[in-house]
């Protein structure tokens, strides 16, 4: 689908299941990712960027999707964050990338989210962002962070 890390270079792969609508658990995967990267001795600035992107991606899946899988790949050269959900998909990606545009629920807003900053923030934190989506099928997000 997109360029994947060369298998020989893979140092570590972790996958996390993300449950739709579960705001109590939201952030647990990002929290585990942060702990793992810290343990691996990754530079604190990069840990912070990956953590923020992972948290935003996780929140997006909790708020908008029907659930999905987040996958973290670590190679000597880069960290790749992949988030794949089961739908419903993004109607207009360009619009979704605009700061302030949001389709979040009232509940998400009450919790302090849904301001339309998530995807732009993932873009800001990552070195390369790939996003593809099909209505009725789902969304695939891939963010790369160079080491």
């Amino acid at each position, binding site marked *: 689908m997109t360029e994947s890390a060369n298998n020989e270079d893979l140092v570590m792969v972790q996958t996390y299941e993300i449950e739709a609508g579960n705001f109590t658990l939201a952030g647990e995967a*990002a929290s585990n990712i942060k702990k793992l990267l810290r343990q691996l001795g990754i530079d604190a600035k990069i840990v912070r960027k990956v953590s*923020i992107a992972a*948290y935003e991606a996780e929140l997006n899946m909790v708020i908008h999707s029907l659930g999905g899988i987040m996958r973290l790949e670590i190679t000597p050269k880069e960290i790749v964050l992949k988030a794949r959900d089961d739908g419903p998909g993004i109607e207009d990606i360009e619009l979704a990338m605009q700061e302030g545009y949001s389709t979040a629920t009232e509940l998400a807003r009450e*919790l302090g*989210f849904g301001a*339309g*900053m998530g995807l732009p*923030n993932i873009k800001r934190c990552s070195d390369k962002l790939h996003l593809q989506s099909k209505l009725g099928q789902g969304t695939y997000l891939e963010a790369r962070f160079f080491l």
Partner: protein
Amino acid sequence: MKIRTIKELLDARLIAGEDFLDNEVLYACGSDLMSDVLAFVKEQTVLLTGLNNPQVIRTAEMLDVSAIVFVRGKTPSPEIIQMALERDIVLLSTDHTLFEACGKLYEGGLRGR
């Protein structure tokens, strides 16, 4: 500014993180919008908020926020306090409003960026 000084300036009550009161924070941010906080906050920041839910702690964790001040006398639930304890985040509660609390810290020399 030391977190201890923030506590004094805001007449705040310590809820969690006594061991970290002498840690330094460089910036402050006052917001109820975690989306904005996630997009703009730097590390070693104190977050002032009227929002009181577990996602405030999660947000602080991702950003390496050192301390959270709950305004208007809000007290977090035991679950939230436990989350902060596990993450070495200081929790304070002040009776001041968000506006007043931010004003007092600004007056004390703390800046936003």
